[in-house]
């Protein structure tokens, strides 16, 4: 067990190292001059040179990367080009927003998607299955921003016009300050995120359940005289869970690196919004920081999913 963990953590560290080098060199060869971004159009060549020297970008790239990694290992990701503040705290401040959005959304999309998928699979070919399939198709076809705009219009703008506030238009209230306000502010983003994702999970659950319900052990469960509900939920769902957990781990990890569209639509100052701003400003240290953060989440999620596998499947133990 310890060996396994050590092995996976070592491998994860390797992934992050390769990722950091890749991003670092990618932005080095990309067009754009950070000094020009900071100093503006009217700066003289000598001013630019001075800024480059201050930023350290006049040195050879290998040296820059070495210096960056040396500091990164101590948790120092450098300073934002834009406002000269340290990168790590800037990013860390954004995490609660994204975390709230993703985890709440995940609960909601599981609560919607999984039952629809199961219903579709149980009554395959029937009207209920076709309704489920229609939901999947609609959810997958709607772009997130359209869904976001629509829910803003229907649930914020229209009620607002008729004089009451059903949901706020956006913004974020800390969970620690007021849980009710927190949930109220996140309700629309959660719904938007969940509708798209629920379609994906409904499709996945449907496919898994169709496979599992054809297994011999399901026939055994029926032959034992179990009620159909027990057959489906206890025997069927238990076996369909493993691939769902894998997908969920990957999705959550990916989103914790920033949910770009939804954060933009609802004005949430999360990691995704930060990434968009940083790219617009060519703020390299921030971009690298956000990418590395996403990488860390994915590495952690993979380890967690592997451990869950062991819990879920006695054959792996």
């Amino acid at each position, binding site marked *: 067990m310890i060996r396994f963990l050590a092995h996976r953590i070592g491998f994860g560290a390797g992934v992050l190292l390769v990722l950091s080098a890749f991003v670092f060199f990618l932005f080095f060869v990309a067009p754009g001059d950070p000094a020009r971004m900071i100093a503006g159009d009217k700066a003289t060549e000598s001013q630019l040179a001075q800024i480059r020297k201050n930023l350290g970008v006049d040195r050879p790239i290998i040296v820059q990367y070495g210096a960056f990694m040396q500091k990164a290992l101590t948790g120092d990701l450098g300073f934002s080009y834009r406002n000269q503040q340290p990168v790590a705290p800037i990013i860390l401040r954004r995490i609660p927003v994204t975390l709230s959005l993703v985890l709440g959304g995940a609960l909601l999309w599981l609560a919607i998607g999984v039952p629809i998928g199961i219903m579709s699979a149980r009554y395959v070919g029937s009207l209920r299955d076709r309704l489920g399939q229609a939901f999947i198709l609609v959810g997958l076809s709607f772009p997130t921003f359209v869904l976001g705009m629509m829910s803003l219009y229907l649930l914020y703008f229209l009620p607002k016009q008729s004089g009451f506030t059903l949901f706020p238009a956006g913004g974020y209230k800390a969970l620690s300050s007021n849980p009710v306000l927190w949930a109220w502010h996140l309700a629309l983003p959660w719904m938007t995120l969940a509708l798209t994702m629920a379609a994906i999970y409904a499709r996945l659950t449907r496919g898994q359940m169709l496979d599992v319900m054809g297994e011999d052990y399901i026939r055994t469960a029926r032959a034992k*005289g179990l009620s159909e509900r027990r057959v489906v939920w206890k025997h069927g769902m238990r076996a369909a869970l493993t691939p769902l957990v894998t997908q969920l781990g990957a999705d959550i990890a990916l989103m914790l690196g920033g949910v770009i569209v939804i954060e933009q639509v609802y004005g949430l100052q999360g990691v995704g919004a930060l990434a968009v701003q940083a790219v617009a400003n060519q703020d390299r240290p921030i971009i690298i920081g956000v990418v590395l953060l996403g990488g860390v989440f994915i590495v952690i999620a993979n380890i967690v999913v592997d451990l869950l596998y062991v819990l879920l*499947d006695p054959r792996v133990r």
Partner: protein
Amino acid sequence: MAILEAKGLTVDIPTEDGTVHAVRNVSFSIKPGSLFGIAGESGSGKSVLTQAVMGLLPNADIGGEVWFEGRNLIGLPQEEMRRLRGGRIGMIFQDPLSSLHPFYTIGAQIAEVLHAHEKISPAEARARVVDMLGKVGIPSPAERFDDYPHQFSGGMRQRVMIAMALILKPALVIADEPTTALDVTVQAQIVALLDTMRREFGTTVILITHDLGLLSSVADDVMVMYAGNRLEYGGAADVFRAPAHPYTAGLLRSTPANYRPGTELAPIGGRPPSLLATPAGCVFAPRCAEALPRCSSEPPPLRRYSDGVEALCWLEEGASMVRPVAPAAVAATKSAAPEPVAEVEDVRLTYQVGSFFGPKRSLDVLKGIDLTVGRGETVGLVGESGCGKSTLARIVAGLVPATSGRVRVLGRDMGTLDARQWREMRQQVQLVFQDPFGSLNPRRRVGAIIGDPFRLHGIASGEERRQKVRHLMELVGLNPEHYNRFPAEFSGGQRQRIGIARALALNPALIICDEPVSALDVSIQAQVLNLLRELQRDLGLTYLFISHDLSVVRHVCDRIAVMQDGRIVEMEATERLFSDPQHDYTRTLLSASKTLPAFAERERRSLVETRVAS
């Protein structure tokens, strides 16, 4: 008074291709406490019949009546049916690994039956499950309660299934091919256990199987099904001693156990019909050796004979071609010491295995194998699953390197070949695999599959290759016009012919057949065995023949090596091995395999009644 009585049972299953008439107008009645056998090949409807009766086929259209404990099971409300399942009627399925849920402990899975039917505390349920596990012969049942199915061997898993089916002491147990997935020695134990349990609890058993040898040894009554029809029905002893229906007779004739080794089998020609169409006459007529002109146009009448045997057949006297064709004892005198094609010397194979948490262990799969296969000879490798016989085959074929020891094919050491030489040697050793469904790429045409060896070794191309492939198809009895078809368009037996044609393509020195007929029905199996023998006679082929089925091995092999736990424990000429086995394990294997009773001289049975089909 019968415990289960079916009258005119019909099962239709709607599919995308049309309605499958899986069971057609089948009636039978089962005496309490008896063992009722249902025999038939795949697609005969024997499993569908019982599952439909149990309400496990929700899509099926079921007609007729099935009476059990005063109730008609057909059309019974779902809730009442659910209470019968597990409670009054237990079921045991073929593959105990896939039939047990992999994620729950066996104890919990058995206890679930109790909880579904009775109000019972967890502690009490546990005690009863442990008691039952002990009864079915699971050692230290209290500790094993919390183990998962994968921690048990195949035989132990089937014991768990039996415990699950019997724990509520149901009046009837349906065992659907309960021993097919198990090794011979384990099969015997499981059958014995079922029999003991039946006597102890007074349970009636329906045993569904394709294994006629097994049925003849345990069943009281049998029903022989073919393409959904009940062709023959009667006391097991009467039916097997003198089958009344040509199909039953044909099945017995295609069983290698009924033959002197090395003789031609008499298979049932052709293949089973599609279940989508309803034939005007007898379903078996197209394959029947004794068919009369009217058989294919008029539905056969039901004949009842003086000994109670019933057959659905136009023949008044019943099947006449009962005995196998008298073997013309061709003493296969093979040259004393043929030139060796493959020599295996002290081959060992060790795997490193590590469990998820634990440290690595080494696992000895082969522990020093010596074996020589001479030109033109067939050497059999027999043993139970896990004994290393398939692994040995892979090593001889050069697919897996041995940890130590030497494999020489045509005098050349397989271990010292460079890449080019290895490629050349690949032409000399070919494999025929067990599963004719899984071992052919479903998206490639048959012509391409058989032509692959020519392509890969750059031997023939274009029209020349096509000619060669057509010739091969003809050689193995496939229609060369089917060159452009896909594997899915062929039956199991035909697919095995495709595999054989592919193996033959490059005139290999050695063909390794890894369980080539074990996935096939008896009648088809006989066709393939005959083909292998013919090819050997005509082309002088050398076979290494792997099988768990002793009657098959005995039929085709000159010498047999018995393997156990990675060792060859006995190696002897076939007849001597069977008549005078030296090793204990060989004796166990031989005694475990059920053979059919000898055919009787045709009995003087007389026709009592004829009921014309309505």
